[in-house]
């Protein structure tokens, strides 16, 4: 990992839902940097073929110094990251993480915060809630989960939040009606969504149809890069060529070859890894570039996007 990575020790592991484990990470030397609500870290995991790095939201109270907590859901189609965390990591093990970064901070000036979590998407809100409480902010949590798989922390949250807690267990047939949730809200209400793409899209569409201004809607999805066709990336500046396998991202392939590209979210939202394209057409899969930039074909977000053909020539 990059030079500013932090070595940590796994201090505790706890099953917080059938498919979710929580890991408490302690600094090995010195202390851990402070973080703001909504922050995440990248965790480097040695996979079978290559190193995998995933971003995980910190799910502890930002005032809780000395350790970080992350919660990892075992993905059925894991590329190795979540499977590694669930089956290979034990208490006492060492891991490398990046310092926290935040693309999902609360809008502190909001008059009301509507937090919508889907499954393991509860994690960033675990760092929001203590701070919102300290500030005396008006908020509601709407938590959609399947009790056979997810639903971490729900008893604790129900107890702690009382009326502000709204749980929807789809395994018990309890559904959340988004249009009811988003109707009749006062000005200054901000909505935050963390969860699967389908939930984020559902909330955004419903809000749009109700006339919500876009800037009141905040969301974050950490998804592993989707696989695609293998292709070759030629690098004009270094004169090298990198083969990108079907199940790895261009960014991962570059890193495997020791070519560092600055990056933070690894999910197509932060814009850090933008790379110039000299030749070749791109299959854009990110949420960062504008439609015009995508159409121009001059840049790519290598964390999620791939070649549309069998090769790309990059300005690296």
């Amino acid at each position, binding site marked *: 990992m990059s030079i500013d990575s932090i070595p940590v020790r796994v201090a505790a592991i706890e099953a917080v839902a059938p498919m979710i484990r929580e890991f408490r990470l302690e600094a090995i030397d010195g202390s851990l940097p402070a973080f703001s609500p909504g922050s995440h870290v990248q965790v480097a995991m040695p996979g079978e073929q290559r190193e995998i790095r995933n971003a995980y939201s910190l799910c502890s109270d930002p005032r809780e110094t000395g350790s970080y907590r992350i919660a990892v859901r075992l993905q059925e189609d894991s590329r190795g990251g979540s499977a590694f965390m669930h089956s290979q990591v034990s208490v006492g093990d060492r891991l490398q993480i990046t310092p926290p970064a935040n693309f999902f901070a609360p809008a502190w000036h*909001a008059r009301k915060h509507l937090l919508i979590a889907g499954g393991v998407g509860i994690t960033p809100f675990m760092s929001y809630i203590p701070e919102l409480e300290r500030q005396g902010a008006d908020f509601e949590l709407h938590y959609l989960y399947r009790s056979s798989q997810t639903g971490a922390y729900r008893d604790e949250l129900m107890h702690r939040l009382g009326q502000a807690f709204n749980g929807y267990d789809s395994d018990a047939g309890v559904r959340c009606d988004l249009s009811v949730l988003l109707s009749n*809200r*006062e*000005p*200054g*209400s901000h909505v935050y969504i963390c969860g699967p793409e389908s939930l984020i899209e559902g909330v955004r569409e419903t809000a749009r149809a109700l*006339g*919500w*201004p876009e*800037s009141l809607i905040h969301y974050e999805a950490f998804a592993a890069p989707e696989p695609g066709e293998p292709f070759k990336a030629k690098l004009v500046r270094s004169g090298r060529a990198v083969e990108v396998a079907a199940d790895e991202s261009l960014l991962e392939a570059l890193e495997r070859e020791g070519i560092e590209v600055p990056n933070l979210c690894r999910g197509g939202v932060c814009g850090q890894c933008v790379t110039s394209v000299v030749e070749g057409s791109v299959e854009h899969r990110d949420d960062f570039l504008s439609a015009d930039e995508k159409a121009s074909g001059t840049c790519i977000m290598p964390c999620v996007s791939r070649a549309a053909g069998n090769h790309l020539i990059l300005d690296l």
Partner: protein
Amino acid sequence: MQIDPSIKSRPTYQAPMLEEPAGLQLFVCQPEARGLLEPLYQQCASAQAQWVLADEETGTEALLASLQQMLVNVPVSTRLYVAGHEGFLWDVRNLALEAGLVDEQIQLAPPVSRGRRLFCTHCYTLMEGVEASPHSCSGCGRLLLVRDHFSRLHGAYVGVQINAEDPSELPEQEVLQ
């Protein structure tokens, strides 16, 4: 009118367009600007559209006070269309932001007059309807250069003393664009 492109802060205005869907369409204006919003109002379903007008007697202050009360209970999907003098436009916009609205929901029509609100950077006095520069500050008497630099917070152009080195120097007044 040509605006110096090096002045990033100076607002530009466009005729408002109807934004839908909206839980409430609010048309806020000073009496002399009503004509600017009338066509848009006519396009709205009447149940969702509402005028917020200053009447001749109570004036703009009363309008702002009643708007402030009103915004507490409007839907999050409210749209605001504002017309009047430039300072008024920004007073309404700032009041709406305080109520939790965002710029996306607020459209300001081109101001109905060229008169500028002027902010004296020396004594913080605000003056209305300034049409020429330099302008004598009504607060501290300094002769102010009326800049094109605009403060959204004050809804005003910024004025700085034009003859600080030699106050006996009195540059000729020019009409502002």
